[in-house]
């Protein structure tokens, strides 16, 4: 049999080194998040433009911002993909060609697409764009992957309903780039096959109008012989259809060995703190495994680091097979993440050891804060003094985006982030 999966590894200086490193693909809800994602180690980011993207509420990119994002990413050798994965109606057809040409001119590397309308139009008017099949098509088998390969697509994003064994088989049987979701929120339905929000709120979920109707309250009954029999009692937990978030960090080595081309983190609506944390942790694990796979050891501190920005329980989704109740959330109460984003470093003076920070959440003298970033090891310290821009003493940084200074003994760098423990976290 022809070996379709590229060579994964080779021996260098007695070490087994991974030569086929997967792409780490991060969400970027706006320009600032794009920059952070790239600086914290993403090989590529996906963003939404003003139209044709499934997140109509996110502060989507204008064409100008896309250009700026692309040129910023380029400096880091990172790529920018644009989600254009709505399921279009007739009224969305006019304007599509211009929109796609604009993306091509802006220098984006590819688009993430679900509707054949957009797939074919892109090929015709913007052939420079790679086309990646969106998970909205719920691609779940190798023959469908073969179909999209023959249609000329560069990459397929698999359905989140595929198991490890299925992912592996698809990769082995079809010579096409395979992208899978490794981290983030999951739809409880097959993507593209849920129109609950259309029916309940007249908002089109397949064009970005999803209201997460699946997470609302429902009661389960049996209708039988004219009777409605409740299938719960007063002290039962109510029926729920909410998935725990996906977290495949532990399985990164397995996925690398399968030759998966791109690891995707979900969450264009997520905060800068979330994006930075998740990207940097996956970056560390991928790099550690690829540098010396035989001596790789999984460190629990990586999972602990991820937990600092998580506000929902996580699990491995369909990775090991059909999910049971353990992969769902019942009686959900919003948890707070264990840590809050407190500020972003703008500058650091090596001589005076004074840091300049832009405040993102309340903090005060005496608080324990943790710094992290792509070029430092995480460290925790206590805020001992605090000044505003004019040098006036403060007891706390109270105002959003306020610029403050204080002493940090260890060096930090621009764009390092600062978090503090959330005292009210559960």
């Amino acid at each position, binding site marked *: 049999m022809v070996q379709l999966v590229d060579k994964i590894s080779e021996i260098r200086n007695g070490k087994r080194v991974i030569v086929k490193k997967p792409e780490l693909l991060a969400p970027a809800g706006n320009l600032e998040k794009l920059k952070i994602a790239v600086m914290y180690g993403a090989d590529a980011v996906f963003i939404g433009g003003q139209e044709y993207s499934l997140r109509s509420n996110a502060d989507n990119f204008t064409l100008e911002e896309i250009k700026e994002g692309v040129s910023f990413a380029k400096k880091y050798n990172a790529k920018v993909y644009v989600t254009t994965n709505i399921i279009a109606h*007739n009224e969305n057809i006019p304007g599509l060609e211009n929109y796609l040409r604009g993306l091509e001119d802006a220098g984006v590397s590819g688009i993430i697409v679900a509707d054949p309308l957009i797939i074919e139009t892109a090929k015709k008017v913007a052939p420079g764009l790679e086309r990646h099949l969106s998970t909205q098509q719920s691609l779940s088998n190798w*023959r469908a992957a073969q179909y999209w390969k023959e249609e000329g697509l560069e990459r397929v994003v698999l359905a989140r309903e595929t198991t490890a064994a299925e992912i592996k088989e698809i990769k082995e049987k079809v010579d096409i780039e395979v992208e899978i979701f490794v981290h983030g929120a999951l739809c409880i339905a097959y993507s*593209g096959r*849920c*129109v609950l929000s*259309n029916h309940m709120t007249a908002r089109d979920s397949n064009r970005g109008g999803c209201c997460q109707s699946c997470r609302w309250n429902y009661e*389960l009954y049996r209708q039988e012989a004219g009777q409605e029999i409740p*299938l719960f009692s007063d002290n039962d937990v109510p029926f729920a259809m909410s998935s725990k978030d996906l977290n495949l960090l532990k399985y990164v080595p397995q996925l690398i060995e399968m030759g998966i081309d791109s690891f995707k983190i979900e969450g264009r609506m997520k905060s800068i703190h979330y994006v930075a944390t998740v990207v940097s942790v996956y970056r560390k694990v991928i790099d550690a495994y690829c540098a010396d796979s035989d001596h790789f050891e999984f460190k629990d501190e990586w999972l602990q680091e991820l937990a600092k920005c998580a506000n929902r329980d996580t699990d491995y989704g*369909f990775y090991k097979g059909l999910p049971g*109740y353990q992969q769902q959330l019942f009686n959900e109460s919003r948890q707070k993440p264990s840590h809050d984003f407190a500020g972003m470093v703008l500058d650091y003076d090596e001589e005076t050891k004074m840091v300049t920070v832009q405040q993102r959440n309340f903090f005060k003298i005496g608080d324990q804060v943790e710094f992290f970033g792509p070029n430092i090891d995480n460290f925790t310290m206590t805020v001992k003094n605090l000044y505003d821009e004019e040098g006036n003493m403060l007891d706390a940084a109270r105002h959003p985006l306020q610029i403050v200074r204080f002493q940090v003994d260890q060096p930090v760098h621009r764009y390092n982030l600062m978090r503090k423990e959330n005292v009210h976290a559960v």
Partner: protein
Amino acid sequence: MPVPELLVTPTNINDILPLIEAGADAFVIGEMRYGLRLAGEFNKADIKNAVEIAHNHKRKVYVAMNAIFHNEKVEELDSYLQFLQEIAVDAVIFGDPAVLMAAKQSAPNIRLHWSTETLGTNWYTCNYWGRKGAKRAVLARELSMDEILEIKENAEVEIEILVHGMSCMFQSKRPLIDNYFQFQGKQMEVRQSGQGYLFLYDPERDNKYPVFEDENGTHIMSANDICIIDELQELVDAGIDSFKIDGIFQSPQYIIEVTKLYRKAIDLCVHDSNQYEEEKDQLLEKIIAMQPQNRGLDTGFFFKETVY
């Protein structure tokens, strides 16, 4: 004026003849191993039988292969398609491109209808699947009358729409009901048992959504049945090719009676539109009188605006 096809869903082989008498032109059947949300299970022998009966009466049989397939089933698609081609079914309904690949390889003469339900929302995409071999596109139920008419105007393939019955709002691969019971530590029969069904009550909207599980996952259905028996004229005039009545969760008697009424409505639209105007309210009244408890009627998205 061309007469649109009246397409119905029998619950078992015994429904075929009475439905033919009631005025059905074509049938959707199949088994849940390959097809989604069918009114009944038809194994291979049943399908063969159904095709014979239907063909004797110059009626058509379409077999549903519109599941979302995972690797475990994609290699058996070929032999199933070959079987369907041999017994001369009139079309296969597909959504997953895997079926297209298998048909090209193993049953190149079989007629294909494209249906994913939710993804059939614009005319370009309908024609795209037409270029890939589909002769018909089944439209999403979440479209307005105007959108349907515009699609038809631009379509190079036949267009099928749902005119009556329940429609699916949600399909999850997960066994959500089973998982709920397991979480509670309860043993429950969650599969469809023939009598009765489960529903989700939505207190906010005071709606009841039928819900069921099968090997394709968990399916949540609309609270009301679509019924546009009194709004057919424009669609007939536009040349919509096929009108489907979906009988999932309904009794054979109900499906037969509804089929008769739609037959009448369609024939009037084609041959005597004045008379249709006269009679359409009565036709609707008759359906209202037949509705089971808990199942209201509405016009779906035909006259409803959706935003995003």
